[in-house]
Each structure stands twice: as structure tokens, then as C-alpha cells.
């Protein structure tokens, strides 16, 4: 089965065109980052991109408008990714409703543990530090697929892919309902990384590097995503 490629972009006015380029390059899912001023899980690239977006006025409502314009340009799932602070202010139910109305599929809330706000259907995250009990809870409650955080750390490119992701994916397969897709992310930036992850997981998530390449425009992003796609298809 073909491995899934998930591309993360920070919401800005230009993002719909960038998302189209990513999908043309072979992305199966686009994560749309709704920026927060104090994003604890982000390394420098996404933190700085978030600061720039906020300086341009990319608050929650304008981000949902960007999402709606993306929906007109691409036909893959669009998953808003953000922090609990945004939903606390906007309202959890209101966010779920407005995001769905704009064309979102599910959501990822980086700092909302599985126990909190169980009514909000979302993609859950697991990490190398997660206990078996927590992986079971995340797998049972997740919406569609499970986000496997490959390392202990923040987002951002690394020289080498995490050596821990294999054990974590294996442990998760044993604990999750059979057939639940496991997509691995954090620290993936090159086609070689993507291919290494694809040999273990059902898909890969690429964030920081995609955000960096996107600064060079849609053509550069399309080419970069295509290089990841080719690596996954060869895996």
C-alpha cells in the first residue's frame, strides 16, 4: 500500500496556492498550522514562521478563511493544527463547527492530552515517553490516524532520523486497533529520512523543512514534495 505523505504549512494568505503545489507534488494530507504566540512544541523554524504569520494578522478567523480557500483548491484532507490556547479563546465546539464548515478534516491540538476535552474529535499524538496505557487511550480515541512523535523534542530538521521511532511504532501496532494508520513525524526533512520512516510507519509528516521551502514559493515546494513522494514510493 502506498505510504501517506503529510505536509505541514503555517496559515498565511499565500497558503492555499502553496497547498495546491504540495498536493501537485504528491501530498496526501495538508496540515494547516494556526499560529500561537507561545508554541511549546515548536523548534525555531515553525516558531519564527508563526511569529511572522501573527504579525500579518493571522488570527483564528482569518486562518479559517484561508482553510476555506484551500478547500476550493485541493481535494485532499486539510487538518488544522494548533494549540489549546486558541480553542480556549475561540470555544472548542465553535472551533470544531467552523473548521468543519470551512472544509477541515479533524484537528490536531498539540498540547491537549487525550484525557482533556474528549468530546473534540481529533488526531491524537503519542511520543517515545508514552506509557502503554496512554498509547492505548490515544489509539482508541484518535480520529482516523495516530500521530507518532518520533523523538523527545521539538519540531525541526535533524541530521539523522530518530532511532526510537521503530520501537515506538512496533509498540503502538501491538496496542492499537489493527489497521489504524500510524504516521510518524518530527525530524523528517530529506527524502532519505522519509524513506527510512516509511519502512516502519504507514506515513510520514514533514513540517519545518516544508515551511522553509514554502518560503521560496509554490514551484520550490512542489519540487521538494515530489522528491519526498518519490522516496516514499520507492520504499
Amino acid at each position, binding site marked *: 500500500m502506498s505510504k501517506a505523505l503529510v505536509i505541514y504549512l503555517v496559515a498565511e494568505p499565500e497558503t492555499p496556492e502553496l497547498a495546491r503545489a504540495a498536493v501537485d507534488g504528491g501530498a496526501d494530507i495538508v496540515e494547516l498550522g494556526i499560529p500561537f504566540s507561545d508554541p511549546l512544541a515548536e523548534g525555531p523554524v515553525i516558531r519564527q514562521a508563526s*511569529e511572522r504569520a501573527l504579525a500579518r494578522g493571522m488570527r483564528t478567523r482569518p486562518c479559517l478563511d484561508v482553510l476555506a480557500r484551500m478547500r476550493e483548491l485541493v481535494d485532499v484532507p486539510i487538518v488544522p493544527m494548533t494549540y489549546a*490556547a486558541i480553542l*480556549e479563546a475561540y470555544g472548542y465546539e465553535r472551533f470544531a463547527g467552523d473548521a468543519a464548515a470551512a472544509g477541515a478534516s479533524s484537528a490536531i491540538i498539540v*498540547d491537549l*492530552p487525550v484525557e482533556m476535552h474528549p468530546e473534540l474529535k481529533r488526531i491524537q499524538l*503519542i511520543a517515545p*515517553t508514552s506509557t502503554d496505557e*496512554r498509547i492505548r487511550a490515544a489509539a482508541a480515541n484518535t480520529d482516523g490516524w495516530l500521530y507518532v512523535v518520533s523523538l523527545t*523534542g*521539538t519540531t525541526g530538521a535533524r541530521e539523522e532520523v530518530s532511532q526510537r521511532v521503530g520501537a515506538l511504532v512496533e509498540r503502538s501496532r501491538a496496542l492499537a486497533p489493527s489497521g489504524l494508520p500510524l504516521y510518524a513525524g518530527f525530524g523528517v526533512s530529506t527524502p532519505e529520512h522519509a524513506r527510512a520512516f516509511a519502512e516502519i510507519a504507514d506515513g510520514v509528516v514533514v513540517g519545518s523543512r516544508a515551511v522553509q521551502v514554502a518560503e521560496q514559493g509554490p514551484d520550490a515546494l512542489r519540487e521538494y514534495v515530489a522528491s519526498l513522494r518519490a522516496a516514499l514510493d520507492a520504499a
Partner: protein
Amino acid sequence: MSTTTTFGAYGGRYVPETLIPALDELEAGWREALADDAFHAELHRLATTYAGRPTPLTLAERFEPGKRIYLKREDLLHTGAHKLNNALGQAVLAQRLGKHRIVAETGAGQHGVATATVCARFGLDCVVYMGEEDMRRQRPNVERMYLLGAEVRGVDFGTRTLKEATSEAIRDWITNVETTHYLIGSCVGPAPYPELVAELQSVIGREAREQVLTAEGRLPEAVIAAVGGGSNAIGVFHGFLDDADVRLVGVEAAGAASLGSGRTAVLHGARSSVLADEDGQIADAHSISAGLDYPGVGPEHAYLRDTGRAEYRAATDEEALDAFRRLARTEGIIPALEPAHALARARDLDAELILVCLSGRGDKDLDEALKALEKLA
């Protein structure tokens, strides 16, 4: 899994999954320690033989004639501020948890110095994150941390103050969580930190209550303390929570009044009263006092505000500077700029017998305060 530990609507654990197991482990280790007489005996031994507890109570007769203002002298604690109470307790706890690397954030540098001190004392690796603006205005404390063997990592983005230093310390913890204890400096952050820090600081209130009773034969009418994150205030308040007739008054910096002009929002892992906009984005705080220059506050303070048990007021930079100089000239005590805010409001509080938590000494502030006083003159 007790991720819902809250103070009313406030508190909780809004952190990435990577940290949740560490918070569970910390909470379990903390409960075990609390139930262990040996832990309490160790803390007591360190407090009395190393830190200099109990700290004295001083009647400030000349500072505000007509009132009886007592100062709880945390400025006389080793390292010069109440921060050591928390750092010592958490260092002992970190060792029980088998963690030999410590990360911390610091604003005024007092918590950084306290953390560097306990790490030197126990032989732990120490990394302190500090905003570059704070490194500039609290230079003596940066030098003390270096001398104590800590690594100080400057944070050069955003406000370059305590908010970003805290975010970077948490990011370090996410990265090194398996070997590292995050020694948070105030009663903020994800559960169980607010409760843990409050308990370790409550020694201030327990001692002060006995000392005021001994000196006056009655309880104070009001207890007043500066509130940034709120740890010295929560520590002294905890001694009087059950004394319904004792007013508890927290004083925020006017430009960083998270309780006075904030809204419910999430910052650094907890839901509390925060300076934030209607979208939940965190706003910048402004204060001459680096220790109060923070847009959030401990969740228990938000709860005490809502229940009416405590009241919160503000003092401007100018009022704090005036009280800073006044205490120096009338009592021969140079306070830190943080408790100078509490001193300013103690003067005009409609109460006669008042306990002020003098949370730290002002050596670190001389440059900044003298420059500011010159401008006012």
C-alpha cells in the same frame, strides 16, 4: 493520570504528550515524598543549616509611621530571596526521582541563582534560560550563576524576558525529559507544579503567622505580597488561608497585571488569568521589575481572586521605586524591586497591622533602580 488537577476552573496540564508521563512521575514522586518523614527531615535540616531559616520578622516603624508594618525577611535567606525554599525542595525531589540534570527559567535571576546554588550544593548539572533583556538588567545575578557553575543560555527572541525564557526551558525539558528535572521557579506551569511550589513556599506563611502572634498577640489585619508568577505570595498566603479575618492582598506590576486586567487563557501548560487578546494570543507585559514582568500568574491566584479570598491590586514602576528608596532610607533595608510593589500598597492600605512579605533584597536592582530614580528626579 490526573491531568485535570485544578484550582476551580484553573490549572490543568496543557502540554505536549511527551511531558505527560514525566508529570505523572513527578506527581507520584511528590506524593511519596510528602508522605515520607525522611523527606521533611531533610528539608528541615537544609532550611536550618544551609538556607538560614527561620527568617526574622522586622517591625518597620519608620517606613510608615502610624501603622505597624512587619516585614517577613526572605531577603535574609541564603541567595537573597525566597526562591531558595522552592529550589532546595525540588532539588531533593529531583534526586529522589533519579534526575541529575536541572533546567530552569529565570526572570530577575533570583530563581536562576537559587537553582544554580542547589545544583552546586548537590552536584547536579544546571542550565538556566534567561531572556537577554533580563541578562542586561540583572547582570550581577548572571555573574553569580556563572560563578556557581551553571550554564546560562540567553533567549534572544520575542520579549527577551521571562515569558520566552520559560518557553525555552520547557522546550529543553521536552527534549531531555528522561534525564532532566524542570525546576520551575514559580507556582505556574502544568500540574503538579503550582501545588508543589506553593507547598514548598508555605514555610514563609507558617513561620510568619507564629512570629506575628508572638510579637503582637494577634494576627495581622492584612498580609500583602508582590505577585508576578506568585510564589512568594502564595507561600505567605497559605499560612493564613483559614484565618478568614486576615485579608490577603497581592500586588501586581501595573504593566503586568495578569489578575487585574487579564482574561482566562492558556500559557505555559496551565489555564489561568493571563494578559492575552481575544484570540488567546499572549500579550507583552511591561515592568521595571524583571521578576514581575510576566503575562501569566499561578492558577491558584486566579482561583483565590474569583472566590474573593484574596484581593489583587497594582503598583506602578514609579510607586515601586519610591517605596524602594523609602525603605532604604527609613529602615536601612534595600528591598528588591518586586517586594517594593507590595511595600507601596502597604502604605495606603486601610489597615493598621500589616504583614509584608519582603521576598528579596535589592542588590541586583541597584543599577536599574538608580538610573530610573535619576530620571524621576
